[in-house]
Structures are given as C-alpha cells and as structure tokens.
C-alpha cells in the first residue's frame, strides 16, 4: 500500500533563504470585510523573473519595526508576474501591511513549506473543503485544476463563511463553475436576500455521494472545521492517506528553528503547512496541542 505524501518542503536554513527580498504592493483588492488580496512585485527584476511557488506554499512578509507574518500565496502558480497574498487584518503586522497601501515596499522571503500533492491525485475525485480565510491557500489548487481539468475526476468545492458578505473571491465563482468545479457554499447566518445554503461545511458532506476508493479531500480553515471535515470524509470511507490538511500555526522563522509552530514531532513551517491526515491527524486530536 502506498501512502501519498505531500511534496518535500522546500524550506532550508541557508542565509539566502532567510533574507527578505523587497517587493512593492502593486494592487490591493478587497475580498471581504477585513480581508484583502495584496498583489506584489519584487523590486529586483531577476528575482521577479525567477520566482516560482507551488500551490499550498507560503511567504514570510516582513515590515521592519513590526515583524513578520506567514501568509499563504493565493494567486495562480503559473502567473507569477505579480504574487497575491490574501490577508485578514488581525494584528500589528497585517495592519502595517495594509497601511503601506499601493506603492508601499515590504520584505518577502520564501516560498516555504510543503505543497498540495496535486500530481499524485491525478485521476481522483477531488473534494476541497474550505472555511473562512482557509480558502486563499486553496485558490492556487483551484487554478491548477482549472488548467488541468481533464486530469481529475469530479471536483467539488465545499466552502463556508460566517455571512454572505464574508465570502471571498465571489467574482471568480462563476468561472470556477464554468471550468467544471461544483460549488457548495454555505454561511452560518444571513438575511432574507441570501438564497443559498445556511449551515456548516462538515454538514454539506451529508449531501455528497462520495466514491471513497476514488476520492481525496483537501481542507483548510479553522482547526475544528478541518477536524470535522476529515471526520465526515473518513465516515464515508475516504482513506486517511488521501486526506490533506493545511494548518495555520504561529509560524515565525519558516524553517523549524524557533519551535513556535511545533505540533507533536512536526514543525508546521518546515514539515507543513500541508500535511497528510494519516500523519498529523492524531496530533490534532490531542487537547492543548
């Protein structure tokens, strides 16, 4: 039996990988209240021309005097003329990035971390379960699938947010559907104008007819949602080895030196953020981890 693994993390601890490269914010898009996509270009044309990343990876964004924040890349993995980071304004660093505005300069180091194992999932039905700010790390997966649609079976995006106003990338949803991705979107609460679903992401699994031998789940969002999405997939006999999760922990250094993002024997920044559930699942169920 083969256990599918995520790709080997690209992070290393050489001095080059620790150096931020300067980038300019060229565009800002409001996705939802307090959530924006910041499009950046590297100032060094050689870095800009050679920069590449894989779906699931993240960069560390640096604002001198404020600190660093690990942010997943949310843009198209093949269109790197500008790199998109979708950020929820939460604390010092993210607010400082927002204050920079278009034309502002910040440090970017990366990409770091493991990737969604899309090559290994070819031929399978793909279920993507995202909650809230968990969608941006999965958007590059959607783009990859759209570009290579024939390589995958049924593709379903199960996406939940707090309210309809909190849904992200809504301008793109039609194009995702046209590309053959089924969308199941739900919100926790809404007013009368919303004609979509009210409920929670794990509940939407009740409405799916999953062929477990031929399916994989990729999920990112609040940890409790990840846990229950994986639980529902496992209840439908999707093997743990074909469930992949992206974890958000307090990443700091980016290569497993500081230990802030340690989860059991793993460092989320170095061994993740994408993990095979068979490997990481037991640690998600440990209280206080």
């Amino acid at each position, binding site marked *: 039996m083969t256990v599918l693994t995520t790709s080997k993390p690209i992070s290393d601890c050489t001095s080059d990988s620790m150096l931020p490269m300067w980038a300019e914010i060229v565009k800002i898009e409001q996705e939802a209240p307090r959530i924006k996509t910041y499009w950046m270009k590297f100032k060094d044309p050689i870095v800009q021309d050679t920069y590449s990343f894989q779906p699931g990876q993240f960069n560390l964004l640096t604002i001198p005097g404020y600190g660093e924040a690990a942010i997943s890349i949310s843009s198209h993995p093949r269109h790197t003329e500008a790199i998109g980071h979708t950020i*929820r304004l*939460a*604390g*010092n660093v993210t607010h400082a990035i927002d204050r920079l505005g278009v034309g502002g300069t910040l440090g970017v180091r990366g990409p770091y971390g493991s990737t969604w194992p899309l090559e290994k999932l070819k031929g399978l039905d793909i279920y993507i379960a995202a909650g809230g700010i968990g969608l941006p790390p999965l958007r590059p997966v959607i783009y990859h699938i759209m570009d290579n649609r024939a390589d995958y079976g049924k593709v379903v995006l199960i996406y939940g947010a707090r309210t309809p106003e909190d849904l992200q990338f809504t301008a793109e949803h039609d194009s995702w559907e046209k590309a053959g991705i089924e969308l199941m979107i739900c919100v926790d609460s809404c007013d009368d104008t919303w004609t979509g679903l009210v*409920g929670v992401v794990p509940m939407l699994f009740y409405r799916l007819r999953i062929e477990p031998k031929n399916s994989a789940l990729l999920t990112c969002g609040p940890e409790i949602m990840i846990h229950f999405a994986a639980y529902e997939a496992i209840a439908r006999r999707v093997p743990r080895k074909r469930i992949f999760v992206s974890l958000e922990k307090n990443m700091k250094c980016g290569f497993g030196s500081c230990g802030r993002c340690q989860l059991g024997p793993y460092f989320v920044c170095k061994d993740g953020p994408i993990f095979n559930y068979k490997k990481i699942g037991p640690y998600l169920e440990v209280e206080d981890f």
Partner: protein
Amino acid sequence: MTPEQELISALQTIPWFQDLNPEYFDKLAGISSLIEVEAGEKLYQQGDKQDYIYVVLKGRVAVEIAIPGKGRTRIYTAEPIEMLGWSSVTPVVRQRTASAVTVLPCLLVRMKASKLQKLCDQNHSLGYVVMRRIANVAASRLLVTRFQLLDIFSHSSDEGSNV
C-alpha cells in the same frame, strides 16, 4: 399515473425509505400528500401547533427563528431528501419552535405527523426506519448548532495578535 401512484413513486425516491417493506408505502401514501410551493411561502410559523412533517423533494427551505429585538434569523436550510418539522413526530407534543419558508420553488411530501406517529406505534419496523432517520436528522442539526454556537469564523482571537 394516478395522484396516488405519483405519491408512492415520490416516497420511493426517498433513500431512507428504501429499507421499507413495500406494503408500507401504501400506508404512508394514505397519510401523505405531494405539494408544490412557490418561493417565499411559509410552510409553518413559529408557535403554530400545525401537525405536519415535510420531506423536501425539490427546492430549498429555510428554517428561521424570530428573536425578540433582533427579528427573524435564518439558522438552517433544508435541501432535497431532508426532513422538516420532525419534532412533531417525537412523543412530546410541541408547538413549532421555528418557522419554515421556501427559498426556492419546492416540491414536498407532507405527512400528517400524528398519523405517522400512530403508524409507527402500530408497525415497529416502520417506526424503526422513521425514528432512525429522525435520530440522524437530530444528530446533524445538533452538529450544525454546535458549530454555530462556537462561531468558528469569529475574529475574537485577533485581539492582541502580533500577526
């Protein structure tokens, strides 16, 4: 196809009835009707003592609760093959604890709840299938309620965040 045959065919499409002995479909048809409802119509109102249970065959129905000072809040939507008004089949007679409003045009099976309860009491194998389903519905609604109570998408953890 006669209306009764049409109703039996509709009942046979409900997956959780597929364990039933065929003879029960006639009995269920005797206490059921097939109804078409336009979008925006109320199936039942919070506080009613209306005695029906519904199964959605097509469309979407919202379950809403009126909160004093806040107005109506949508807490759930039911999709095809989901059940609504199920608490009226449980032993304690209650008034409706929420309202149900169609969000899209709907086709529904409507069953007289008191008669269904009586059928279940008289035919335990039918009762087992119905109550097993209701237990499943209650468990899934409980999970939804837990998540809503947890408010997992709230930003309360942002306070004091360095990121």
